Each structure stands twice: as structure tokens, then as C-alpha cells.
């Protein structure tokens, strides 16, 4: 068709694009960069998340004395308690675990705006919801229940997903170490992609047990045809324990060093952790530390403390 000698079809097209453009949300609507299945890359820090790390092994962690004290009462056999075997993992730990991640989004069917992003981890079936965009979400009151996954809101800044998580239940910084995180913990994340690589920078702040935010970057690789197995947790007796028995260490029990320290050549002072162990000048300090005592010596001390504790336990048993 012609309007005054001009083909009308391009005009219709231009008009349609204009209408859509004027109605489209500004600034640009959220992206779906992280949808899909993601496998954790095992090229860094795999040891602390593959069953370890060992109790008392804290180098590179900005923990406080209070955290150290709580951890010193932890017995790794606690995880074998039937009541705790299927305990969920907190959002502060889940993304660091060696587990497949799946992410998907939900959009408003009318406006096509992103209203939430959900993630689930294969390990321990950790399901999390990130409400979008943060500016339109009413946060729960401080008195609202704290949960393992907490309450997360997100927003897109360029290609980076910013996530802020509050209302977390008391949890732990690393598995099997007894290092605590309080229910005051807040986590901020920056999640972005380089091609098939996904980076999640986690910034965990806890006024009770961390002297500064614990900043940790985790890598995932995209699985184009991913799948995820169910996680039917089945509590069973891995260790023979009498009913009502709770593995723990009494306050005097201080020697929790592991043979791994000695095999890795880690000075015992460094194993205590703290923010000073995170910076390059600590390499100079390491030179000044005395050599570790022999494993036999430390092992004997631990055995003595363990015997003392067992004696107290038997004495107080009904």
C-alpha cells in the first residue's frame, strides 16, 4: 500500500516498534543470564568442600576469638548424630559446596518482568528464592523467622546480579569445623558470567564471629544438557552411639590439631586463622615461626585430653 507515494508497511513497522519501545520498562529489564545447570569447578579450594576441612584448620579465614572458642568445643562426630544427618545447609555455605547448581526465573506473564530467581543445589536439596527487583520487595520485619536460606532480594546492575540475604538461621562458615555464623549474618553476592563460566562472589558479614567480611569467589561451568538427581536423605547409624549422646569437646579440650597439618607443613599458629593470615605479609611472619612439635607429641597431648574428657563423661553418666 502507498501513502502519498510512500510504501506504508515500513511506517507500520516503525510505529509498532515505537509503541513497544515507549511501553518497555526503563532501564532495560532484567536478564536471564544465570538460568540453567551449572557444575562446580574443582580447580580451587576443593579440599575444604570435599568432606573437609579438618577441625582446627582455619588459615585464611577472618574469624574472631569467639568463633575459635566455639569451634574448639566442636566434635566432628556431631555430624553423625541421626538428628543432624539431614540438617539443611545454610545459604552462606551451599553455593560453595561441590554440588550442581540449577537456576531458573519466573516472569510476570503480563509485563514479562523478572519477579524471582530460584536456585537449587543437588547436595542437600538447598532451594533458595531471590525476589526481584529488590526495590519493589518489602523486606520482612526483623522479628520474622530466620531460615537456612534466609530472605534474598536481587537486582541487576549491568550484567551483574546483586543479591542481598538476611534472616539467616545460625549456621556455620565451613562444614565439619564447628566454625559458627550467628543469626546476625548478612550475605551480599555478585553473580556474573564470562561465556560458559559463572562467577559468584560471596561476601559474608557477621558481627559476632567475623572480624571483616569473608569474601569468597566461586566458579561454575555451564552444563548445556544438565540434570539433577533427587536427594533423599536417609538418617542412619554411622557410628555406634548410645541414645542421648552428643559428641562435643569440653572447654578445657584445646588440642584439636590434625595430622594433616603436619603432612601439609602448616605452622600451628597459622592454623588458628584470623584476618592476618590472609595477607601477603604473613609470608614474612611464617619465616619467624618455630618448627611444629612432632606429631607424636601433639597426638599424646590430645590423647590425654580425650581420656580426661571420657573419664568425666563416664562419671556423670546416669
Amino acid at each position, binding site marked *: 500500500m502507498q501513502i502519498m507515494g510512500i510504501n506504508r508497511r515500513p511506517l507500520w513497522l516503525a510505529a509498532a516498534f515505537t509503541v513497544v519501545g515507549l511501553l518497555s520498562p526503563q532501564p532495560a529489564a532484567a536478564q536471564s543470564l544465570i538460568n540453567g545447570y551449572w557444575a562446580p569447578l574443582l580447580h580451587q*579450594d576443593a579440599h575444604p568442600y570435599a568432606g573437609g576441612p579438618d577441625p582446627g584448620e582455619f588459615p*585464611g579465614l577472618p574469624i574472631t576469638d569467639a568463633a575459635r572458642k566455639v569451634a574448639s568445643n566442636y566434635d566432628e562426630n556431631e555430624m553423625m548424630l541421626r538428628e543432624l544427618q539431614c540438617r539443611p545447609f545454610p545459604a552462606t555455605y551451599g553455593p560453595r559446596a561441590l554440588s550442581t547448581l540449577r537456576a531458573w526465573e519466573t516472569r510476570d506473564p503480563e509485563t514479562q518482568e523478572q519477579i524471582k530467581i530460584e536456585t537449587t543445589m543437588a547436595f542437600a536439596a538447598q532451594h533458595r528464592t531471590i525476589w526481584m527487583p529488590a526495590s519493589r520487595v518489602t523486606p520482612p520485619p526483623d522479628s520474622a523467622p530466620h531460615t537456612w536460606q534466609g530472605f534474598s532480594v536481587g537486582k541487576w546492575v549491568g550484567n*551483574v546480579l546483586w543479591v542481598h540475604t538476611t534472616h539467616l538461621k545460625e549456621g556455620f562458615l565451613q562444614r565439619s569445623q564447628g566454625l559458627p555464623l550467628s543469626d546476625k549474618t548478612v550475605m551480599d553476592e555478585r553473580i556474573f558470567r564470562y561465556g560458559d563460566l559463572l562467577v559468584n562472589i560471596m561476601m559474608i558479614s557477621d558481627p559476632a564471629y567475623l572480624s571483616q*567480611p569473608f569474601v569468597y569467589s566461586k566458579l561454575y561451568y555451564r552444563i548445556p544438557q544438565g540434570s539433577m538427581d533427587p536427594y533423599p536423605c536417609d538418617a542412619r547409624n554411622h557410628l555406634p552411639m548410645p541414645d542421648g549422646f552428643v559428641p562435643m569437646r569440653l572447654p578445657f579440650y584445646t588440642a584439636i590439631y590434625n595430622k594433616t597439618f603436619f603432612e601439609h*607443613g602448616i605452622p600451628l599458629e597459622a592454623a588458628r586463622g584470623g584476618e592476618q*593470615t590472609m595477607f*601477603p*605479609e604473613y*609470608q614474612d611472619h611464617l619465616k619467624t615461626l618455630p*618448627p611444629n612439635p612432632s606429631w607424636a607429641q601433639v597426638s599424646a597431648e590430645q590423647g590425654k585430653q580425650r581420656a580426661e574428657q571420657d573419664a568425666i563423661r563416664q562419671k556423670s553418666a546416669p
Partner: protein
Amino acid sequence: MKLRSLVGLLALTGALTFGHAELAAQAAPQAGRQGGPPAAQQPVAPQTGQSAALTDLTGYWVSVVNQDWYFRMITPPKGQYAQVPLNAAARKIADQFDPALYGGANYQTSGIIDCRAYGAAGLMHMPMRIHITWDSPDVLKIETDWGAQTRLLRFSPGRPNDDLEQAMRRGEVGPTQAQPSMQGYSLAMWEQPFRLNANGWQRGFAGRGGGLGQGGIDVSQPGGDLAVLTTNLTPGWLRRNGVPYSARTRVIEHYLTFQDPTGKDWINVTTEVVDPEYLNTPFITTADFRKEPDGSKWAPHPCKQVAER
């Protein structure tokens, strides 16, 4: 209003709107993001790496060793190459590491570190401070205190923005004629947001940065990262206990800035090492650096030169 008049009016509105956006994008690529006035009336100078910078990386930064502590802060035990996808030939070389050259019985904590551990493929993972400055408008310089190294990241003159993955696919970047060296030859580019999966509106409309589906750029969006491709390397170490990489290695890095909840600035560096000689798959790691107010903690520590046997 008759229908044909309405259609004509809408088309005219669209043309004016997008035409203006196109002009603004072409004439002043930085103005939209920084909120400054458009520079359409002024002569357009060629873009340099410095003038097109998407983020400010300059200053003193300290590496924060919050993961892989055992492999980074101390020298791992001889033969410890966990997590690195080494092949058999590489393991054989790694097993030749001689602790006697690095402090004997105390080699793990002696602080005596071979210079090969500070080659470009392993450098950013080492505990150290870095000082980043503009050496020239198209060359970003990274100096290190531990290891005393200098890297030069070179932008292509007049073309500081690109997409590294696409440029590699197009065969536009790769090894050069430069002499092999520890830090190699590094080509840098600023990668702007939305290169991956933006829709037409986010990329900008026809004529604005390439048109629909062409991966154009919406300069009004915040963010972006620095991408670096390093080639022309001499052999070096991925870890300070002699885990090797070969001269055929290429290194792909991305530098992205962020702030922690206390307002401190950080750089996240993602490093992908591709070595067809010694690695079964690319070796990918990250390192985090926190900004420091000045260079008062700068502490040069030279590395140890050991002749290869």
C-alpha cells in the same frame, strides 16, 4: 486523528527518538554512563584504553588469600598438585622440584620462591601487592612487590572495546611476533555489558551499535570488565612447588571491580590457563584484590632465579 496520520506520527517519533540515541551513542560513548554532557559539537578524538575505561583499576591493591591457602601462602609439599588438571608429562616435571634450592627442610615457609612461579599464568594467584597505572593511554601497567614483576596490558589503538571470546573466534587475536618472556604479550580490551544475551532494546536499536541481533552496545548500562589475552610466554609454574606450564600456554583473564559491604573496592580476577602441552583441560581460578589507600605497605621481595636444568 485518522489512522494513517497516527501511524505517521508514531513513526516520526520513533525515528527522532532512536536517531537521537544513535547520535548520542556515536558521538559520546562515555557520556551516557557518566552523566556528562554529550560531546557532539567537539572533534572526536580516537578512543584509547584509558579514555574508554569502563572502570578504574589504577592504584594499590593487595591480594586477599581466602582460598587455596595451602597452595598460595606456603609452598605446597613436593608432588602436591591437587586440583590442577595436569597430564603425565607435567607430573613428571613437577616431581623434579628440589626443596633444597628453596630453604631445605623449611622450604614450605622459607619465603624463597622461584621466579617461574611469577610468570603470567600463575602471577595473579600469588600473595602480593600490585600497583596498577597507565603507562600510556593504550597501555595499562601492573607491577608486583612480591616477585618484582611488571606486566603491560596493551589495547589495540583506536579499538579499546571488544569482546574477547568473539575476537578469538574470529581469529583476530592470538600469538604475536613478540619475543617470548615471563609476562608474555598481553592484549587488553574493555568488555561492555549485555554482550551475551541482551534483547534488542538493551543492545540498542538498528543503527545504534550494530542493530538488532548484532551484539551492539548500550553504553548507558553500568559495569563491564577488562579482558586480557596473554600469549608469547616462556615456560613457568602454576604453583610455587614446580607445577609447570609450557611456552604454548595462553592465558585469558577478566578483571571486574566490586565493593564489599563496608564500601571497600575490590578486583576479582578470573584466570583461565590453556596449555595443550601440560594440561588436560583449561585450568581456571580466581583471585581477589582489595584496594589500599596508598603504597605504604608496598614491600618488594625479589624472586629466586634458578637456572633450568
